[in-house]
């Protein structure tokens, strides 16, 4: 009796194993597409709207890996992703110069804003330029939360500190979270600190934060997203057809309409502005 029980247990286990192995390699490899992107596109909810439309149209299965722009490009450079949707223009140019990408197209933009506690201890509210505001934060020694993760936002922030002529690195008031945008905003809210964020993630999280937009509208705060196809010539395993299909989709009229309307209903204003086909110069680049 005992033996029988053990035997049936063993059989059940084997059946389970077999069932799992049979069901898991679902899609043919060429139908899989790895999209490495930034946390802002996922945390704002945009990808949840865009990806299903693309999958339905094209038949590809998109594996979205939401990491910082820095890591996304590192994955692209190793041929571990097929297509990138990123927002770190200077790093992207270097990426293209290395021949890691075969095409790079403008998709959309929104802007960065400097947010902080309503009390505004550094008194930066309403300042016209980010440089002024950053100088003021440094002078007053108010806590500033940095992403510290090589993401597009972090790259932008480092550029802004440089522009303000402040060396923030290693200062006591300058703290690096090493986390995504959403979590960094939560830390900033908890510590009553300032931080630089893209508008989309801020609006999506606003309800729980208690942080306010203090500085906006500086031309330097523009946040531009490009779609990059990883170069198949360099990495033969890259799904170039899928990458092209996705990149074409993001700049298609259909996707651009979705991008332009995304968030209007929920926040009363769009989170992203579609830019496909525009010249980069028209955005002040």
């Amino acid at each position: 009796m005992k033996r029988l029980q053990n035997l049936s247990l063993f059989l059940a286990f084997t059946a389970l194993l077999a069932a799992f192995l049979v069901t898991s390699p679902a899609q043919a490899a060429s139908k899989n597409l790895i999209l490495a992107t930034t946390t802002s596109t996922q945390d704002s909810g945009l990808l949840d709207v865009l990806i299903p439309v693309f999958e339905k149209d094209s038949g590809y299965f998109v594996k979205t890996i939401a990491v910082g722009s820095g890591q996304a490009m590192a994955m692209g450079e190793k041929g571990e992703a097929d297509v990138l949707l990123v927002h770190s223009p200077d790093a992207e140019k270097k990426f293209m110069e290395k021949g890691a990408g075969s095409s790079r197209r403008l998709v959309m933009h929104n802007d960065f804003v400097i947010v902080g506690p309503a009390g505004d201890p550094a008194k930066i509210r309403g300042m016209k330029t980010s440089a002024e505001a950053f100088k003021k934060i440094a002078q007053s020694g108010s806590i500033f939360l940095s992403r510290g993760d090589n993401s597009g936002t972090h790259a932008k922030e480092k550029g802004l500190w440089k522009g303000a002529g402040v060396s923030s690195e290693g200062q006591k008031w300058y703290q690096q979270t090493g986390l995504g945008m959403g979590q960094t905003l939560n830390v900033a809210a908890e510590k009553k600190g300032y931080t630089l964020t893209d508008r989309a993630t801020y609006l999506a999280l606003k309800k729980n934060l208690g942080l306010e937009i203090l500085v906006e509208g500086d031309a330097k705060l523009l946040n531009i997203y490009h779609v990059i196809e990883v170069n198949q010539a360099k990495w033969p395993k890259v799904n170039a057809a899928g990458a092209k299909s996705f990149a074409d989709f993001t700049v298609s009229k259909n996707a651009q309409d979705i991008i332009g309307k995304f968030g209007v209903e929920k926040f009363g204003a769009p989170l992203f502005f579609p830019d496909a086909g525009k010249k980069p110069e028209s955005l002040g680049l």
Partner: protein
Amino acid sequence: MELILEGFRMAWHLLVTLDKEVLSVTLLSLKVSGLATLISLLVGVVGGTGIALAEFPGKKLLVSVVNTSMGLPPVVVGLFVTIMLWRNGPFGSWEILYTPSAMVIAQTVIASPIVMGISIAAIQNLPPNLRLQILALGASRPQMVWLLVREARLPLLAGIMAGFGGVISEVGASIMVGGNIKGYTRVLTTATVMETGKGNFDTAIALGIILLVLCFVINYLLTMVQQRERPR
């Protein structure tokens, strides 16, 4: 405080309405961690019993290595498994990175040493004369091993529970090798991280509660099996 209550309310709502997405995420958690635990059960109990019963030079060193591996940090495991499974890595031709299979592999690496370490201790903890006695009664070697494993089943089941608890609650490896892909490799822990990032704390708490309930149910069932008959 209000947030936690809201989380409870949400968890209840998600459970009673059988929310499709939550259901699939929960099932995947169970499937991946359950399978990883079953494989580590084979690897751990067989390996652990073998190590405990055999005498060989370097045994103490090997046992120390196994015991140390019981505390393998999931992110480190995740990192190594990811590098191994990269397209251009040694096992790239398998094309399983960012699939549930990759998550099973990573979780098996995490759980196996836990089960093995506890198995070694369980077998070694049996009275040393028991082995002689069984052999003296005319048992063959495989029969002797089988009887010893049966005799140690209480701590062995504890080992399985520890292994399962270790993998169903880990997030570092799952998010790295699975990628938290919606409807495909998203499990309870990675979904909790993502919802926290999105600022949806109520959903995150609800997912956490569901994870705890799931763990409790599984452990309750295992404990039932364990306590069904006390060893004589």
